[in-house]
């Protein structure tokens, strides 16, 4: 539905969007994630036909946004970062005006594509929930690009995520896969009784376990942090190993790396690399 090919946009010396390519399928909700200034808004503005690009193409609903701007604009709904309100207008006349210039009427092509640029900024918690629900309900017959730097928003609403930083795409995947891929596996916290010295080698012997480290606790127990490769379940193996080594098991808890951590990791690594 939306195809972006090698899009590049420069502001003077600074490259705001650098060779960005991605695709959005029909009915998909794509999260467009990145820190402030990463190029999210610039990309949205190019896709909506507000800004020209310096290189690359963008095809929306089969129409090139630069060659057939009116055709693509006719099929797209765009919510800019700053909601474009005529504050002196009443709500009904404002809506009527927008409906007219957007060509929303019975005879027109139904709009099935939406770009939302940080749509929940400035809303109260209840409204945020409502808007997220609305965005989710758009999926299926609407194609949505949701730009945001709020990570829970992406995990809640999006099927796929594009992470952009310094104008470049650093990752494209589902929120779940991203968490797994970048955590390089899982971290499992195991709290055992006094005999940690015998438990630790037992845990290390389990296949898939990369490293076991011990963390101090206030009580007399021992907290072992098990890092594993891959996303496969190993908690049952861990608990069995603990019992077999004769120790008491108090707690076992998997902490998969959150999208937040993935995001921070991706965007800070990039910054360090370019700095």
């Amino acid at each position: 539905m939306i195809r972006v090919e090698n899009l590049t946009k420069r502001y003077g010396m600074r490259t705001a969007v650098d060779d960005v390519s991605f695709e959005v399928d029909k009915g998909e909700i794509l999260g467009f994630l990145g820190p402030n200034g990463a190029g999210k808004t610039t990309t949205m503005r190019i896709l909506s036909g507000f800004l020209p690009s310096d290189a690359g193409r963008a095809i929306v609903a089969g129409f090139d946004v630069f060659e057939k701007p009116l055709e693509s604009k006719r099929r797209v709904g765009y919510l800019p970062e700053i909601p474009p309100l005529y504050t002196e207008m009443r709500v009904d006349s404002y809506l009527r005006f927008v409906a007219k210039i957007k060509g929303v009427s019975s005879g027109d092509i139904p709009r099935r594509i939406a770009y939302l640029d940080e749509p929940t900024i400035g809303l109260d918690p209840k409204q945020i929930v409502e808007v997220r629900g609305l965005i989710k309900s758009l999926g299926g017959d609407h194609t949505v690009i949701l730009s945001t730097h709020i990570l829970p928003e992406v995990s809640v609403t999006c099927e796929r995520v594009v992470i952009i930083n310094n104008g470049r795409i650093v990752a494209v995947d589902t929120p779940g896969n991203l968490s797994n891929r970048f955590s390089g596996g899982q971290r499992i916290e195991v709290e055992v009784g006094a005999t940690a010295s015998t438990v630790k080698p037992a845990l290390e012997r389990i296949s898939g376990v990369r490293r076991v480290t011990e963390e101090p606790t206030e009580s007399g127990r021992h907290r072992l942090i098990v890092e594993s490769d891959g996303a496969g379940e190993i908690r049952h193996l861990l608990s069995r190993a603990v019992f077999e080594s004769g120790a008491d098991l108090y707690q076992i808890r998997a902490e998969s790396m959150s999208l937040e951590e993935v995001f921070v990791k991706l965007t800070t690594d990039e910054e360090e690399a370019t700095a």
Partner: protein
Amino acid sequence: MRNYLAIIEKELHTLFVSPIAYVLLAVFFGVSGYFFEIILSFYVQQSAMRQFSQSAMSMDVPSLIMQSYFGVLSTILLFLLPMVTMGILAEERKRGTIELLLTSPITRLQLILGKFSAAMIFLAVMLAPAIFNVLLLLTYSDPRPPVPPYLAGLLGAFLLGGALLAVGIFISSLTENQIVAAAGTFGVFIVLWVLDASAQGGTTFSNETLRYLSVLNHYEDFTKGVLDTQHVVFYLSFIVLGLFLTSLSMESEKWRK
């Protein structure tokens, strides 16, 4: 066409909801009415004095009144029109609503023409008392003067106003700040106004050119009730140029911050 009308409607709505429109109309009605009264009593007095002194020279009182009155109108327009156009694009940029307009399936031409047409409608409302005053003159003068010269005067005021509005819209497209737009427009108006004076004397090419470019120079014939297509063409080209420059300015990259 639908888009064009929608823009006009919205523009008029914005204008007439803001207090600026009413202040401008009130000032224009008041000042132009005041001057009309002064001019009227002055010429009536003059003609009465001539009759007393048995002067052989007769004077055409209605057309003298018209000429002075339309002259005054042009000066008031010069002061007030920058405030009509100052926000017309600058405010859209400042509020970010330009993003709404430029991402809608409307053309730049529809947008600019819509805004210009709305400004012209406002100008027509502004000139309503002038029409009323002209009707007064036509109704109460004896013998009744011919109508066409007065229509020429009104057309002149409308065309002059249109040219100034087109320039104002262009200047409003150059900034995000209404006050800067108003001040800039006012400055440009004054330059266009005095071009004529700076070319006084001499018939060199540059003097002729300056005189030709002066917006006031072309207005004079209208106030005398003369309709010359040369002047109509001048104002129409001025409007086209102003709107074309607006379009170029909006196309430029810098326009989208």
